[in-house]
């Protein structure tokens, strides 16, 4: 290999090496038996199950809100649309910790929304519902942007034709536009889910870090590193990395197939 070729590959190899090095260092930090024990511990299993449950609930909520909102943005022109789109992009560039503080102040009991929710018997702060809210907030910001692009890529002529074929508007959306944007929406959903799964900052502010109650995988890493239980922290970190890798691989396959279909 010539020096030029080696230099060309070096940055890529260095980046991959750093990522693999960090994962390997985590995996090799503990003896294999201790790691297996930590992976099977009740706290690790709780964090894994809780993370999957809350992130799936958040994904469902985010889809319910984001798909109709993204469709409206893709199909309708209205005054201030650019400002609305920019506003919806804001959570993507705001640190989740800051978003969490804002939501915490918005929903505290002495504020109007918080007191109304409390009167209705709904407790969002420092509860599993708060975890779902924080994850929904983060997932929705990713979803709405990706879904808007996905709907924008579907020729509106299909919806017009469907309408002349007797389909009411909601069914045009569900039976024509969603399936036609399907692969791109699937990719968006996987990305939104992975963001929800790895969410930490907003969750910490809204739901707190309570062991075996609001303990997602990232929260378990934080709690156990802070309390010196490195074995549980490493087990949770590895589970989080493994799940994220599987989701990102699925995303890559979904988008690759979408590309193949288009061509």
């Amino acid at each position: 290999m010539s020096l030029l070729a080696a230099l060309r590959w070096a940055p890529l190899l260095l980046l991959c090496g750093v990522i693999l090095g960090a994962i390997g260092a985590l995996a090799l930090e503990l003896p294999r038996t201790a790691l297996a024990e930590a992976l099977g511990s009740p706290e690790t299993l709780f964090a894994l199950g809780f993370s999957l449950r809350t992130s799936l609930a958040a994904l469902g909520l985010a889809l319910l809100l984001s798909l109709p909102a993204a469709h409206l943005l893709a199909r309708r022109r209205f005054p201030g649309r650019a400002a609305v789109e920019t506003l919806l992009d804001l959570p993507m560039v705001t640190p989740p910790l800051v978003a969490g503080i804002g939501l915490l102040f918005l929903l505290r009991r002495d504020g109007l929304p918080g007191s109304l929710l409390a009167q209705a018997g709904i407790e969002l702060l420092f509860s599993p519902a708060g975890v779902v809210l924080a994850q929904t907030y983060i997932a929705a910001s990713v979803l709405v942007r990706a879904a808007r692009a996905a709907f924008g890529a579907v020729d509106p002529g299909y919806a017009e034709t469907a309408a002349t074929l007797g389909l009411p508007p909601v069914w045009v959306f569900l039976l024509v536009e969603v399936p036609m944007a399907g692969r791109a929406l699937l990719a968006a959903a996987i990305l939104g889910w992975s963001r929800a799964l790895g969410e930490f900052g907003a969750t910490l502010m809204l739901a707190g870090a309570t062991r075996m109650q609001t303990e997602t995988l990232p929260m378990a890493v934080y709690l156990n590193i802070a309390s010196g239980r490195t074995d549980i922290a490493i087990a949770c970190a590895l589970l989080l990395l493994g799940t994220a890798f599987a989701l990102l691989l699925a995303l890559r396959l979904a988008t690759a197939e979408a590309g193949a279909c288009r061509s």
Partner: protein
Amino acid sequence: MPELKLVAARARTLAPIDLELARGEALAVLGPSGAGKSTLLKLVAGLLPCRGRVMIGGRDMAGVPPHRRQLGYLSQELHLFPHLSVRGNLALALRFSGLPRRDRAARIEETLALCAIAHRAGRFPATLSGGERQRAALARALVRQPRLLLFDEPFSALDPGTRQRLWRDVGALRERLGLAALIVTHDPAEAAALATRRIALEAGRLRPA
């Protein structure tokens, strides 16, 4: 009673238009690109906000959404749903018709045969030839047994041989079913082949052809 009646109907770039189309009549509206031909069809289909009156089968269409207008619309791009087979495209068009499932299946097979596309019923649009796609889209437009057909240059992308064969078949089929049709085209040969009457549309205004 005319099948279609427009009274001072106007939208976007169209000047107020008065027009009548009798049952079984095929009217070609000839005009160059940008004359407002597609706008005229979208106005009749309810796909654009319209001022003035649009009446189909003697009923005022004010406030009637496109899915309740009982018409078959063939656009230039056809817009066959790519995620559904030809049969699936027809089934979707009948899904909200109120017909029992068994009657729907029979109607679909009957319409596929009528449009000579039954042999491709299980295929997806991307795998069909240009002429087959036209036949599939025509079958989908006819399966609901509309009062009125709207054609927006649907045959313009075909080779001359296929186009002439389709003109002949579609014309015969329309006459057999006794359907009224509003056809917009820039091609005088297409107007002559498909229509029983012709008018011209230029810069948003109708005049005799």
